[in-house]
């Protein structure tokens, strides 16, 4: 479990995250939602240890994040950022193999290669192993990095953690659902993985998250199950959007249907 206790993050005088407490529990998918600039990515960076909180604490397995050695931490916790800067010609399989870095002593074993290959299969890119990474589309690249993260914690001995920042932003609808279903299966099937994921699509969160943290202006507006958090009131307050919440026609989950916004009245457009 990763536990954030009253975490505050500041950039100069601006408060990016304001006393947020949240738990990423094993066996669960936690979605972090909120408008642009709400502090979602900053909170995720604090949960990963990339950013030290200016106030409060973050613990992983009960131990302060800063007390972990980087390599030790990397063996149980994988992170996928919004975008990666990799611009050099690498084979796709070698990019996934980079996820094995914290476990490699001298050189990658056949076991490492096998796991990289399985992870690539898991994201549906099995046939891309020998392709050159720069030739891939944006969505394919995102899936390669998801596979890299999977390979990183594939054989972690006990609890493990997966932190994803908008992993579906570049994906088409089929791959969005595939990726989220994979992530959910990962959390649920063996119940050893805690997933925290920043999302923009409310319905994707409603469908795949066990719990949702709603942020606005760096503060936690609501935490709880999708049906408890995704209410018309909460959405109006957080996003300034009018929405009707209807039951999903096929499953027991809420479906958010936004009503045409009047946030930008036409008379202001010249």
């Amino acid at each position, binding site marked *: 479990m990763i536990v954030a206790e009253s975490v505050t993050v500041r950039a100069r005088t601006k408060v990016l995250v304001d006393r947020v407490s949240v738990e990423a529990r094993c066996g669960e998918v936690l979605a972090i939602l909120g408008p642009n600039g709400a502090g979602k990515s900053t909170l995720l960076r604090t949960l990963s240890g990339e950013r030290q909180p200016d106030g409060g604490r973050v613990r992983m397995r009960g131990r302060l994040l800063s007390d972990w050695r980087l390599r030790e931490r990397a063996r149980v916790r994988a992170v996928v950022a919004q975008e*990666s800067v990799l611009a050099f010609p690498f084979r796709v399989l070698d990019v996934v193999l980079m996820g094995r*870095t914290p476990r490699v002593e001298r050189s990658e074993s056949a076991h490492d290669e096998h796991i990289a290959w399985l992870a690539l299969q898991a994201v549906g890119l099995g046939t891309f192993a020998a392709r050159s990474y720069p030739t891939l589309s944006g969505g394919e690249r995102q899936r390669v990095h998801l596979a890299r993260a999977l390979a990183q914690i594939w054989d972690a001995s006990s609890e493990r953690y997966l932190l994803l920042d908008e992993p579906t932003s570049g994906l088409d609808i089929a791959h969005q659902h595939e990726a989220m279903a994979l992530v959910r299966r990962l959390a649920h099937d063996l119940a050893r993985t805690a997933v925290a994921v920043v999302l923009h699509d409310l319905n994707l969160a409603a469908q795949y998250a066990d719990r949702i943290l709603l942020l606005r202006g760096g503060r936690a507006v609501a935490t709880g199950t999708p049906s408890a958090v995704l209410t018309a009131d909460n959405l109006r307050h957080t996003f300034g959007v009018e929405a009707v919440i209807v039951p999903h026609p096929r499953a027991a989950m809420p479906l958010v249907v936004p009503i045409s916004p009047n946030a930008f009245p036409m008379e202001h457009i010249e």
Partner: protein
Amino acid sequence: MSGAVTAGSLSLPALPLAKQGKRALGLLALLVVAASFVAVGVGAVGIAPAQTLAILAESLGVGGISDFAASQQSVLLSIRLPRVLLSIAVGAALAISGAAMQGLFRNPLADPGLVGISSGAALAATATIVLGEALAPELPEAARTLLLPVAAFLGSLATTFLVWRVATRSGHTAVATMLLAGIALNALTGAGTGVLTLLATDPQLRTLTFWTLGSLNGATWPALWIVLTMSAPALILIPRLSRALNALLLGEAEARHLGIEVERVKAAIVLLTALAVGATVAACGMIGFVGLAAPHLIRLLLGADHRVLLPGAALLGAALLVLADLAARTVVAPAEVPIGIVTTLLGAPFFLWLMVREAEHGGLFR
């Protein structure tokens, strides 16, 4: 997770690239050996490969492989062999330093020469020559031979640090800034060298030309040992950072998420490359473009994976410099073209081609 995702009758795909990489490295090593045998054999006194073998064998106490003249033996052992071995050491050190810096800056244009590191080392070395005699005329010859590499090392360390500080803001290296800083530093060190030429005596002037143009003419066994000692750490330790350099290509935060102690890796690479580049400049002046061309060719042929790139660039850099030096001393024989001119004549057009090609792909100046 292995339970969550059915592996089924999964078999690993045929991806023999790891093996291909090893085979390519083997071929490159052969290229270095072949180039060396040619290079030690060509010159005013010709030595056939079999005779080279015989002379080397006799030095080890094994005689009778082939006949050779005493003049051939002395030319090989005291002139050609140290020169070729020095070419190998310098070429490998420059190329691996270039490859490591390109990984560190996450950009294929970082080169010890282009960003002003070699010229920083050269300025420090020339200052030592010109001012050293004035300030410490009593210094024994032995101390002077050591003082030069140390000064060159400090010069390259200072410039590396300066370029890095100027071009890197919060973990991101602005390439345009880096190259512009390189131009400024090259101009500055050029001016510094200019001032020194005003102070220099005639024999010193000749030495200054040697630094700025580069030459392997001064190759002796002691010079070779100094270069070997100073570049051995880079040649041995940098390949062990290949996974860290790979991870760094993903970004610094990503590398940390993969368990890499990024700051330590950066410091290690800056120190190791400064040491290696300083050594090469002290021994043979500025030799440009090897650190740019060798890694880039390996990337084109074998990909960007540092596990192959670093040793591959070192081997190719060694072979390139052996052949470039062979050209430098045979094209206008008995005179010699300074090797820095040869590598620049070959490397500068290559650099231009690289810029045009990358500009078309739009990859370099993000």
